[in-house]
């Protein structure tokens, strides 16, 4: 089922990154950011919920959002390697967010005219959120990249560490044969333009990696995803169906 698989990829991207960003809750460098980051995390988790819900309907086997989020193992997760990367420092987190949002914004913009009305609906909400994530993360990338010697070094480290995960953004994955979803490869020019604009102000240059990594869409993940899922899924697995 290509549509089911493609929805799962998108949902996994949003849930995994949403969970990662939520790990900052209570640990952000300042109170204002401690509100901003959970805001962003919840935006992504909200999108993931809509996508899982729709994927469950498409599959037609009675699986709901909780089943798809909490009862699949690491190898069954189809998210990008980029989004499962550990938070690292604040520079690292903000650059990862910029990379993801700079991709998802044109993606959802293209999905606004999808032939599938549910996808249109999800896109309509997500497109505004991603525009904000680009702005928020982008402004931090500019300030850290063009800040002190220490902040510039950290941002440069983040750029180097994350560059190998960029190429995977533009792989079609399970959406190859799903006309209702945008072509990911078509979004590369827009992504590069957004990043170039931010990096230019930050005094940085984007260097594509010579050794790009991929495999997330096939369930081949880094070791960190398993740890994250173990924590994220522990309550549901210990108390299936628990509500409060």
């Amino acid at each position, binding site marked *: 089922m290509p549509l089911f698989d493609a929805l799962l990829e998108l949902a996994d991207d949003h849930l995994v990154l949403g969970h990662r960003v939520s790990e900052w809750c209570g640990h952000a*460098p*300042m*109170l*204002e*950011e401690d*509100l*901003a980051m959970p*805001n962003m995390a919840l935006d992504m988790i909200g999108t993931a919920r809509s996508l899982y819900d729709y994927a469950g309907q498409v599959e037609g086997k009675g699986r709901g959002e909780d089943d798809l989020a909490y009862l699949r193992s690491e190898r069954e997760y189809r998210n990008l390697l980029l989004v499962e990367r550990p938070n690292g420092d604040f520079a690292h987190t903000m650059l990862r967010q910029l990379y993801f949002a700079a991709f998802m914004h044109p993606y959802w913009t293209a999905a606004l005219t999808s032939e599938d009305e549910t996808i249109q609906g999800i896109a309509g909400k997500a497109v505004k959120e991603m525009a*904000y994530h680009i*702005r*928020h993360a982008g*402004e931090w990338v500019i*300030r850290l990249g063009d800040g002190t010697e220490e902040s510039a070094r950290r941002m440069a480290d983040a750029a180097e560490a994350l560059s190998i995960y960029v190429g995977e953004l533009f792989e079609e994955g399970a959406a190859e044969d799903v006309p209702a979803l945008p072509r990911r490869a078509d979004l590369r020019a827009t992504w590069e333009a957004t990043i170039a604009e931010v990096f230019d102000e930050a005094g940085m240059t984007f260097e594509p990696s010579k050794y790009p990594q991929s495999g997330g869409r096939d369930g081949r993940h880094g070791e960190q995803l398993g740890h994250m899922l173990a924590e994220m899924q522990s309550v549901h697995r210990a108390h299936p169906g628990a509500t409060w």
Partner: protein
Amino acid sequence: MTGEVPLWEVFIRPRNGLSHKHVGSLHATDEVMALQAARDVYTRRGEGNSIWVVPSAAITASDPDQAGENFEPGEKIYRHPTFYDIPEQVGHM
């Protein structure tokens, strides 16, 4: 960190036609970040459609020690516009 980061006062306009009202303050490195933080801290529940941020340092405040001469006019009841008869047709003023 907040010791180095300037303080901003935040004003939100709840609806078109109303004026911006002071809602609180926050720390941010500059005006762009202050607007973003204000959006995140003070408009999460649809509180408004416009934000102003002003550096707290730009605000000149009255001196509490002068509260007496400033704000306690005493028995100057003639300052209250209560000596006019308002025609009923005017309605609520």
